[in-house]
């Protein structure tokens, strides 16, 4: 093998490593603000958090049973993620009997598509995976709105990489975006 081909191969390997390291499917989803968070100087008074993830998908999404299972996984990811990222922010999360100062984060999955691995393999952009949800944050007791957001995560890569990714891989990026939303409001 000649010097130039070797040099090109080293650049290819660099690109390959960057692709694998960047974990394209697990990158954070995007967050759109629907209603600005209230200017609540006492936001830190909320010591509790309740995370609810419900499947409320439209036609075209996966069967409800699959979305329900995904909702359960996403809820666990969000709870564990908050405990890891801000271990001292909330004294209790998803307590059996939530205290009076608790934030209710209601995550309503409105679109959930696993896509098609073979279509993704054939061409980037086909067989995309989607998870879209409304994230409403409110006072658990008074139902006062603390913020409304839309969190979306799309995966449209093609080739071997596109085909090798599963919906659980993009659930991670979606959950990270929800975690960021909750921590941003409750800071």
């Amino acid at each position: 093998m000649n010097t130039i081909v070797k040099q090109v191969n080293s650049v290819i390997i660099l690109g390959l490593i960057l692709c694998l390291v960047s974990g394209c499917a697990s990158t954070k989803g995007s967050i759109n603000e629907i209603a600005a968070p209230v200017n609540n100087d006492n936001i830190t008074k909320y010591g509790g958090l309740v995370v609810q993830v419900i499947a409320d998908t439209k036609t075209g999404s996966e069967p409800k049973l699959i979305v329900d299972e995904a909702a359960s996984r996403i809820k666990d990811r969000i709870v564990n993620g908050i405990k890891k990222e801000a271990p001292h922010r909330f004294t209790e999360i998803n307590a059996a009997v939530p205290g009076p100062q608790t934030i209710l984060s209601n995550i309503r999955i409105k679109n959930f598509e696993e896509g098609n691995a073979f279509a993704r393999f054939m061409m980037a952009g086909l067989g995309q995976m989607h998870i879209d949800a409304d994230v409403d944050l409110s006072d658990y007791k008074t139902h006062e709105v603390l913020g409304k957001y839309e969190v979306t995560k799309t995966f449209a890569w093609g080739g071997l990489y596109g085909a090798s990714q599963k919906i659980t891989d993009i659930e991670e990026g979606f959950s990270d975006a929800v975690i960021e939303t909750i921590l941003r409001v409750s800071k």
Partner: protein
Amino acid sequence: MRILNLLSIILVLLSLTTGCATFREDGRATLSKWPPDAPVNKNTIALQVSGKAIANDEQMDVNEGILEQWRKEVIRAYETSGLFSAVKSGREKSDIYADVKISDKGEPNMFMAFLTGFTMFLIPSKVHECLIINTTYKDQNGKALNSVSKTECVNSWIGLFVFPAMFSNSPGTVPKDVLFDLNRSSILEANSKATFNTVSRGEP
């Protein structure tokens, strides 16, 4: 689940088709007769081989391993020609001295190369490069006898589905074949101009 397993097997098989293959371009030098007719009195020849690589007009060092492979091909061409009583290397005392300068010149697209890796070979990369050989023949006194220049270009493809082509077009062997042929072509051209007969007989 069965469909997923089948799909996984297909994907693994497809990933195994990733490879790099090198193809020679048309217009390669034709070799009239190999080996050529040997003279009655053969001279000795000493080969001085040097190499450089030029990527996008920027000169790069050629590592010693590659240079050694190139040197072997040059020596093989001269040895199999049957025109010389001995093929020596470097500056050993000889009747004829051949200074063989090899250039590996190409214009690789590094952005495409990066994309190839980043898309896990979905987008292939093509590397076009030319091997240029300039050979200068000198006698014992350092007088130039003849100078021959030969060029051949190759294209290397890196991507999915290329692996099967590697058996016949390995990037490890095709450039060696090109170098061997270019040197054989240089020898034939120099021989046709009686370059190797004009030297006064020296010590073997």
